[in-house]
Protein backbone atom coordinates (compact mmCIF):
# COMPACT_ATOMS: atom_id res chain seq x y z
CA UNK A 1 0.00 0.00 0.00
CA UNK A 2 3.06 2.30 0.16
CA UNK A 3 3.02 3.81 -3.37
CA UNK A 4 -0.75 3.75 -3.27
CA UNK A 5 -0.68 6.19 -0.34
CA UNK A 6 1.20 8.85 -2.35
CA UNK A 7 -1.29 8.37 -5.22
CA UNK A 8 -4.12 8.95 -2.77
CA UNK A 9 -2.60 12.24 -1.58
CA UNK A 10 -2.50 13.44 -5.18
CA UNK A 11 -6.12 12.38 -5.74
CA UNK A 12 -7.18 14.24 -2.59
CA UNK A 13 -5.54 17.42 -3.83
CA UNK A 14 -7.34 17.07 -7.13
CA UNK A 15 -10.63 16.48 -5.35
CA UNK A 16 -10.26 19.79 -3.47
CA UNK A 17 -9.89 21.64 -6.77
CA UNK A 18 -13.40 22.25 -8.26
CA UNK A 19 -12.02 21.89 -11.79
CA UNK A 20 -10.70 18.37 -11.19
CA UNK A 21 -13.08 17.26 -8.42
CA UNK A 22 -15.27 14.91 -10.48
CA UNK A 23 -12.27 13.34 -12.23
CA UNK A 24 -10.54 12.68 -8.88
CA UNK A 25 -13.69 11.21 -7.36
CA UNK A 26 -14.13 8.87 -10.30
CA UNK A 27 -10.50 7.78 -10.00
CA UNK A 28 -10.91 7.07 -6.27
CA UNK A 29 -14.03 5.02 -6.96
CA UNK A 30 -12.35 3.03 -9.72
CA UNK A 31 -9.44 2.30 -7.42
CA UNK A 32 -11.41 1.17 -4.36
CA UNK A 33 -14.95 0.26 -5.45
CA UNK A 34 -14.31 -3.47 -5.91
CA UNK A 35 -12.53 -3.90 -2.59
CA UNK A 36 -15.27 -1.99 -0.81
CA UNK A 37 -18.01 -3.84 -2.67
CA UNK A 38 -16.70 -7.28 -1.72
CA UNK A 39 -16.11 -6.26 1.86
CA UNK A 40 -19.75 -5.14 2.03
CA UNK A 41 -21.08 -8.09 0.03
CA UNK A 42 -19.48 -10.67 2.34
CA UNK A 43 -21.28 -9.01 5.24
CA UNK A 44 -24.72 -8.38 3.72
CA UNK A 45 -24.62 -11.29 1.18
CA UNK A 46 -27.14 -10.09 -1.46
CA UNK A 47 -26.02 -7.92 -4.39
CA UNK A 48 -28.97 -5.47 -4.14
CA UNK A 49 -28.22 -4.84 -0.47
CA UNK A 50 -24.49 -4.50 -1.16
CA UNK A 51 -25.24 -2.02 -3.95
CA UNK A 52 -27.43 0.11 -1.66
CA UNK A 53 -24.80 0.12 1.08
CA UNK A 54 -22.01 0.94 -1.40
CA UNK A 55 -24.01 3.89 -2.76
CA UNK A 56 -24.44 5.24 0.78
CA UNK A 57 -20.72 4.82 1.35
CA UNK A 58 -19.91 6.77 -1.82
CA UNK A 59 -22.26 9.62 -0.91
CA UNK A 60 -20.60 9.85 2.53
CA UNK A 61 -17.20 9.87 0.86
CA UNK A 62 -18.30 12.64 -1.52
CA UNK A 63 -19.59 14.74 1.40
CA UNK A 64 -16.68 14.14 3.72
CA UNK A 65 -13.65 13.87 1.48
CA UNK A 66 -13.05 17.62 1.30
CA UNK A 67 -12.57 17.74 5.06
CA UNK A 68 -10.71 14.42 5.29
CA UNK A 69 -7.60 14.94 7.40
CA UNK A 70 -4.66 12.96 6.17
CA UNK A 71 -3.86 11.60 9.64
CA UNK A 72 -4.94 8.16 8.41
CA UNK A 73 -4.76 6.59 4.99
CA UNK A 74 -7.65 7.08 2.57
CA UNK A 75 -7.86 3.29 2.25
CA UNK A 76 -8.49 2.73 6.00
CA UNK A 77 -10.94 5.67 6.10
CA UNK A 78 -12.95 4.16 3.25
CA UNK A 79 -13.01 0.75 4.94
CA UNK A 80 -14.21 2.36 8.16
CA UNK A 81 -17.14 4.00 6.40
CA UNK A 82 -17.98 0.77 4.53
CA UNK A 83 -17.87 -1.26 7.76
CA UNK A 84 -20.07 1.21 9.67
CA UNK A 85 -22.61 1.40 6.86
CA UNK A 86 -22.74 -2.42 6.58
CA UNK A 87 -23.24 -2.82 10.33
CA UNK A 88 -25.99 -0.19 10.32
CA UNK A 89 -27.72 -2.05 7.50
CA UNK A 90 -27.40 -5.41 9.35
CA UNK A 91 -28.81 -3.83 12.50
CA UNK A 92 -31.86 -2.56 10.58
CA UNK A 93 -32.30 -5.99 8.98
CA UNK A 94 -32.15 -7.71 12.38
CA UNK A 95 -34.79 -5.35 13.79
CA UNK A 96 -37.11 -5.89 10.82
CA UNK A 97 -36.81 -9.69 10.95
CA UNK A 98 -37.38 -9.86 14.73
CA UNK A 99 -40.61 -7.88 14.26
CA UNK A 100 -41.93 -9.81 11.27
CA UNK A 101 -41.12 -13.50 11.93
CA UNK A 102 -39.90 -15.76 14.73
CA UNK A 103 -36.97 -17.10 12.78
CA UNK A 104 -34.12 -18.60 14.82
CA UNK A 105 -31.74 -18.45 11.86
CA UNK A 106 -29.98 -15.12 11.20
CA UNK A 107 -31.59 -13.21 8.29
CA UNK A 108 -28.23 -13.03 6.47
CA UNK A 109 -27.76 -16.82 6.73
CA UNK A 110 -31.20 -17.23 5.15
CA UNK A 111 -30.18 -14.92 2.32
CA UNK A 112 -27.04 -16.98 1.80
CA UNK A 113 -29.11 -20.13 1.23
CA UNK A 114 -31.19 -18.21 -1.31
CA UNK A 115 -28.10 -17.49 -3.44
CA UNK A 116 -28.23 -18.87 -6.99
CA UNK A 117 -25.53 -21.57 -6.77
CA UNK A 118 -25.87 -22.41 -3.09
CA UNK A 119 -24.76 -25.99 -2.27
CA UNK A 120 -24.70 -26.91 1.41
CA UNK A 121 -22.34 -29.85 0.73
CA UNK A 122 -19.58 -27.78 -0.83
CA UNK A 123 -16.76 -26.72 1.52
CA UNK A 124 -16.74 -23.15 0.15
CA UNK A 125 -20.45 -22.68 0.95
CA UNK A 126 -19.99 -24.34 4.32
CA UNK A 127 -17.26 -21.79 4.96
CA UNK A 128 -19.71 -18.98 4.11
CA UNK A 129 -22.33 -20.50 6.42
CA UNK A 130 -19.75 -20.80 9.19
CA UNK A 131 -18.73 -17.15 8.76
CA UNK A 132 -22.36 -16.06 9.16
CA UNK A 133 -22.56 -17.90 12.51
CA UNK A 134 -19.70 -15.85 13.95
CA UNK A 135 -20.25 -12.93 16.29
CA UNK A 136 -20.15 -9.57 14.46
CA UNK A 137 -16.62 -8.52 15.48
CA UNK A 138 -15.08 -11.93 14.74
CA UNK A 139 -16.85 -11.97 11.37
CA UNK A 140 -15.34 -8.60 10.47
CA UNK A 141 -11.86 -9.60 11.62
CA UNK A 142 -11.98 -12.91 9.77
CA UNK A 143 -13.17 -11.33 6.52
CA UNK A 144 -10.60 -8.53 6.59
CA UNK A 145 -7.76 -10.93 7.34
CA UNK A 146 -8.76 -13.96 5.28
CA UNK A 147 -10.17 -12.26 2.17
CA UNK A 148 -8.67 -8.74 2.18
CA UNK A 149 -5.35 -9.89 3.68
CA UNK A 150 -5.25 -6.75 5.75
CA UNK A 151 -2.31 -6.27 8.17
CA UNK A 152 -3.33 -6.11 11.84
CA UNK A 153 -1.87 -2.61 12.09
CA UNK A 154 -4.29 -1.24 9.48
CA UNK A 155 -7.16 -3.36 10.75
CA UNK A 156 -6.72 -1.81 14.19
CA UNK A 157 -7.34 1.61 12.58
CA UNK A 158 -10.42 0.39 10.71
CA UNK A 159 -12.01 -1.38 13.68
CA UNK A 160 -10.53 0.84 16.41
CA UNK A 161 -9.25 -2.21 18.33
CA UNK A 162 -5.80 -3.19 19.58
CA UNK A 163 -3.70 -5.56 17.45
CA UNK A 164 -3.55 -8.10 20.28
CA UNK A 165 -7.35 -8.22 20.55
CA UNK A 166 -7.63 -8.59 16.77
CA UNK A 167 -5.20 -11.54 16.72
CA UNK A 168 -7.18 -13.24 19.50
CA UNK A 169 -10.47 -12.59 17.62
CA UNK A 170 -9.06 -14.06 14.42
CA UNK A 171 -7.81 -17.16 16.28
CA UNK A 172 -11.23 -17.74 17.89
CA UNK A 173 -13.01 -17.13 14.58
CA UNK A 174 -10.89 -19.72 12.70
CA UNK A 175 -11.44 -22.31 15.45
CA UNK A 176 -15.20 -21.75 15.41
CA UNK A 177 -15.30 -22.06 11.61
CA UNK A 178 -13.34 -25.31 11.80
CA UNK A 179 -15.79 -26.71 14.38
CA UNK A 180 -18.76 -25.69 12.24
CA UNK A 181 -17.37 -27.34 9.11
CA UNK A 182 -16.53 -30.56 10.98
CA UNK A 183 -20.00 -30.78 12.54
CA UNK A 184 -22.14 -29.90 9.50
Amino acid at each position, binding site marked *: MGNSHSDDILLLQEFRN*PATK*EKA*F*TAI*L*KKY*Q*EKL*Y*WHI*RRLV*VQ*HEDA*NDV*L*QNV*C*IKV*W*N*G*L*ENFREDSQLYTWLYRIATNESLTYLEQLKRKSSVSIDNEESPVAAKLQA*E*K*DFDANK*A*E*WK*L*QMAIQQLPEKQRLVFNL*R*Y*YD*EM*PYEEMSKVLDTSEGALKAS*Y*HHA*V*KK*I*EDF*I*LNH
Partner: protein
Amino acid sequence: MKQALDIVAELKEISALVAGIEKNNLFSVPEGYFSEFPEKILKHIYNNGIYSSAKEEIEILSPFLASLKHNQPFSLPDNYFDNLKSQISTEEETLTPVRSISSKSKWIKYAVAAAITGFIGISAIFFINNNFTKNHSGVAAAQNNKHTDDDFNKISDDALEGYLSGMPEKSASIDSVETTFYDVAVLDLDDKRLSNILHEIPDEDLIVYAQDPSLDISL
Protein backbone atom coordinates in the same frame (compact mmCIF):
# COMPACT_ATOMS: atom_id res chain seq x y z
CA MET B 1 3.23 -10.89 -1.45
CA LYS B 2 5.11 -11.58 1.76
CA GLN B 3 2.08 -10.33 3.67
CA ALA B 4 -0.16 -12.86 1.86
CA LEU B 5 2.25 -15.69 2.57
CA ASP B 6 2.39 -14.76 6.23
CA ILE B 7 -1.40 -14.82 6.42
CA VAL B 8 -1.56 -18.28 4.84
CA ALA B 9 1.09 -19.57 7.26
CA GLU B 10 -0.78 -18.04 10.20
CA LEU B 11 -4.01 -19.71 9.08
CA LYS B 12 -2.33 -23.10 8.60
CA GLU B 13 -0.97 -22.86 12.11
CA ILE B 14 -4.45 -22.24 13.57
CA SER B 15 -6.41 -24.62 11.32
CA ALA B 16 -5.08 -26.69 8.45
CA LEU B 17 -8.68 -27.56 7.53
CA VAL B 18 -9.76 -23.94 6.98
CA ALA B 19 -6.45 -23.13 5.21
CA GLY B 20 -7.14 -25.99 2.80
CA ILE B 21 -10.48 -24.58 1.58
CA GLU B 22 -10.16 -22.84 -1.78
CA LYS B 23 -10.81 -19.10 -1.84
CA ASN B 24 -13.26 -19.19 -4.69
CA ASN B 25 -15.62 -16.28 -5.09
CA LEU B 26 -19.06 -17.81 -4.84
CA PHE B 27 -21.04 -14.62 -5.34
CA SER B 28 -21.93 -13.21 -8.72
CA VAL B 29 -22.19 -9.57 -9.80
CA PRO B 30 -24.24 -8.19 -12.73
CA GLU B 31 -22.16 -7.72 -15.86
CA GLY B 32 -20.60 -4.28 -16.25
CA TYR B 33 -21.51 -3.33 -12.69
CA PHE B 34 -18.11 -1.95 -11.68
CA SER B 35 -17.43 -0.13 -14.95
CA GLU B 36 -20.73 1.73 -14.77
CA PHE B 37 -20.78 2.36 -11.04
CA PRO B 38 -18.72 5.63 -10.82
CA GLU B 39 -20.83 7.32 -13.50
CA LYS B 40 -24.08 6.11 -11.87
CA ILE B 41 -23.08 7.36 -8.46
CA LEU B 42 -22.10 10.82 -9.78
CA LYS B 43 -25.43 11.05 -11.58
CA HIS B 44 -27.21 10.07 -8.38
CA ILE B 45 -25.29 12.72 -6.41
CA TYR B 46 -26.18 15.54 -8.81
CA ASN B 47 -29.80 14.43 -9.38
CA ASN B 48 -30.46 14.34 -5.64
CA GLY B 49 -28.76 17.63 -4.94
CA ILE B 50 -26.03 16.11 -2.79
CA TYR B 51 -23.30 18.71 -2.46
CA SER B 52 -20.07 18.31 -0.59
CA SER B 53 -20.13 21.96 0.52
CA ALA B 54 -22.31 25.08 0.55
CA LYS B 55 -19.90 26.70 -1.89
CA GLU B 56 -20.30 23.86 -4.36
CA GLU B 57 -24.08 23.91 -3.94
CA ILE B 58 -24.41 27.60 -4.89
CA GLU B 59 -21.91 27.21 -7.73
CA ILE B 60 -24.06 24.47 -9.25
CA LEU B 61 -27.45 26.03 -8.47
CA SER B 62 -26.57 29.55 -9.63
CA PRO B 63 -23.09 30.50 -10.85
CA PHE B 64 -24.30 34.14 -10.99
CA LEU B 65 -25.13 34.24 -7.26
CA ALA B 66 -21.90 32.39 -6.51
CA SER B 67 -19.93 35.14 -8.31
CA LEU B 68 -21.76 37.90 -6.36
CA LYS B 69 -20.97 36.33 -3.00
CA HIS B 70 -17.56 37.95 -2.69
CA ASN B 71 -18.69 41.46 -3.62
CA GLN B 72 -19.35 42.92 -0.16
CA PRO B 73 -21.76 45.90 -0.36
CA PHE B 74 -21.18 47.05 3.24
CA SER B 75 -18.26 49.25 4.26
CA LEU B 76 -16.26 49.26 7.50
CA PRO B 77 -14.30 51.99 9.30
CA ASP B 78 -10.59 51.89 8.50
CA ASN B 79 -8.62 49.35 10.57
CA TYR B 80 -11.84 48.30 12.40
CA PHE B 81 -10.76 44.74 13.15
CA ASP B 82 -7.21 45.81 14.09
CA ASN B 83 -8.54 48.23 16.72
CA LEU B 84 -11.36 45.95 17.94
CA LYS B 85 -9.26 44.08 20.51
CA SER B 86 -7.83 47.20 22.16
CA GLN B 87 -11.30 48.78 22.16
CA ILE B 88 -12.76 45.78 24.04
CA SER B 89 -9.96 45.75 26.65
CA THR B 90 -10.48 49.52 27.32
CA GLU B 91 -14.19 48.94 27.86
CA GLU B 92 -13.45 46.08 30.24
CA GLU B 93 -11.28 48.34 32.42
CA THR B 94 -13.96 51.04 32.72
CA LEU B 95 -16.70 48.62 33.69
CA THR B 96 -17.90 48.87 37.31
CA PRO B 97 -16.83 45.76 39.17
CA VAL B 98 -19.66 43.45 39.99
CA ARG B 99 -20.20 43.06 43.73
CA SER B 100 -20.96 39.50 44.49
CA ILE B 101 -23.22 38.52 47.34
CA SER B 102 -21.81 35.74 49.44
CA SER B 103 -23.98 32.69 49.80
CA LYS B 104 -23.84 32.91 53.64
CA SER B 105 -25.36 36.41 53.86
CA LYS B 106 -27.97 35.35 51.31
CA TRP B 107 -29.09 32.52 53.62
CA ILE B 108 -29.29 34.82 56.65
CA LYS B 109 -31.53 37.19 54.68
CA TYR B 110 -33.79 34.34 53.65
CA ALA B 111 -34.00 33.06 57.25
CA VAL B 112 -34.96 36.51 58.64
CA ALA B 113 -37.57 36.98 55.92
CA ALA B 114 -39.03 33.55 56.68
CA ALA B 115 -39.18 34.29 60.45
CA ILE B 116 -40.97 37.63 59.90
CA THR B 117 -43.43 36.08 57.50
CA GLY B 118 -44.10 33.26 59.99
CA PHE B 119 -44.70 35.72 62.86
CA ILE B 120 -47.12 37.81 60.80
CA GLY B 121 -48.93 34.70 59.69
CA ILE B 122 -49.38 33.27 63.21
CA SER B 123 -50.52 36.68 64.56
CA ALA B 124 -53.09 36.94 61.81
CA ILE B 125 -54.45 33.47 62.62
CA PHE B 126 -54.82 34.35 66.34
CA PHE B 127 -56.49 37.68 65.52
CA ILE B 128 -58.98 36.07 63.15
CA ASN B 129 -59.79 33.29 65.67
CA ASN B 130 -60.43 35.77 68.53
CA ASN B 131 -62.68 37.94 66.41
CA PHE B 132 -64.60 34.92 65.32
CA THR B 133 -65.16 33.68 68.92
CA LYS B 134 -66.25 37.15 70.08
CA ASN B 135 -68.63 37.63 67.22
CA HIS B 136 -69.94 34.14 67.62
CA SER B 137 -70.61 34.53 71.40
CA GLY B 138 -72.14 38.01 70.85
CA VAL B 139 -74.48 36.61 68.27
CA ALA B 140 -75.44 33.72 70.58
CA ALA B 141 -76.12 36.11 73.49
CA ALA B 142 -78.21 38.36 71.30
CA GLN B 143 -80.14 35.34 70.11
CA ASN B 144 -80.75 34.19 73.75
CA ASN B 145 -81.88 37.66 74.78
CA LYS B 146 -84.21 37.76 71.86
CA HIS B 147 -85.69 34.38 72.89
CA THR B 148 -86.14 35.60 76.53
CA ASP B 149 -87.86 38.80 75.38
CA ASP B 150 -90.18 36.78 73.19
CA ASP B 151 -90.99 34.44 76.12
CA PHE B 152 -91.73 37.40 78.44
CA ASN B 153 -93.99 38.94 75.84
CA LYS B 154 -96.01 35.74 75.77
CA ILE B 155 -96.66 35.83 79.58
CA SER B 156 -99.67 37.88 80.61
CA ASP B 157 -99.31 40.75 83.09
CA ASP B 158 -101.65 39.07 85.57
CA ALA B 159 -99.57 35.92 85.66
CA LEU B 160 -96.43 37.98 86.30
CA GLU B 161 -98.06 39.95 89.10
CA GLY B 162 -99.27 36.73 90.72
CA TYR B 163 -95.81 35.23 90.56
CA LEU B 164 -94.07 38.31 92.00
CA SER B 165 -96.56 38.70 94.92
CA GLY B 166 -95.88 35.10 96.05
CA MET B 167 -92.08 35.66 96.20
CA PRO B 168 -90.36 36.61 99.53
CA GLU B 169 -88.33 39.81 99.65
CA LYS B 170 -84.98 39.11 98.14
CA SER B 171 -82.68 40.39 100.87
CA ALA B 172 -84.48 38.77 103.82
CA SER B 173 -85.25 35.44 102.27
CA ILE B 174 -81.87 34.74 100.73
CA ASP B 175 -79.91 35.83 103.77
CA SER B 176 -82.07 33.87 106.19
CA VAL B 177 -82.03 30.74 104.08
CA GLU B 178 -78.29 30.93 103.69
CA THR B 179 -77.79 31.55 107.45
CA THR B 180 -80.12 28.70 108.47
CA PHE B 181 -78.41 26.28 106.18
CA TYR B 182 -75.02 27.50 107.33
CA ASP B 183 -75.91 27.14 111.00
CA VAL B 184 -77.34 23.68 110.68
CA ALA B 185 -74.39 22.59 108.66
CA VAL B 186 -71.88 23.97 111.14
CA LEU B 187 -73.69 22.67 114.25
CA ASP B 188 -74.08 19.12 112.89
CA LEU B 189 -76.46 18.24 115.79
CA ASP B 190 -78.03 14.85 116.56
CA ASP B 191 -81.61 14.58 118.02
CA LYS B 192 -80.46 13.87 121.59
CA ARG B 193 -78.21 16.89 121.74
CA LEU B 194 -80.85 19.10 120.13
CA SER B 195 -83.46 18.12 122.78
CA ASN B 196 -80.89 18.96 125.50
CA ILE B 197 -80.37 22.42 124.01
CA LEU B 198 -84.15 22.97 123.70
CA HIS B 199 -84.66 21.99 127.41
CA GLU B 200 -82.41 24.85 128.35
CA ILE B 201 -84.63 27.41 126.51
CA PRO B 202 -87.60 28.73 128.63
CA ASP B 203 -91.10 27.76 127.36
CA GLU B 204 -92.20 31.39 127.02
CA ASP B 205 -89.41 32.10 124.55
CA LEU B 206 -90.35 29.10 122.49
CA ILE B 207 -94.06 30.17 122.33
CA VAL B 208 -93.04 33.68 121.21
CA TYR B 209 -90.71 32.19 118.57
CA ALA B 210 -93.42 29.86 117.29
CA GLN B 211 -95.93 32.67 116.99
CA ASP B 212 -93.55 34.78 114.83
CA PRO B 213 -95.44 35.10 111.43
CA SER B 214 -92.27 35.51 109.42
CA LEU B 215 -91.20 31.93 110.18
CA ASP B 216 -92.57 28.88 108.37
CA ILE B 217 -93.01 26.42 111.25
CA SER B 218 -94.30 23.66 109.02
CA LEU B 219 -90.77 23.09 107.83
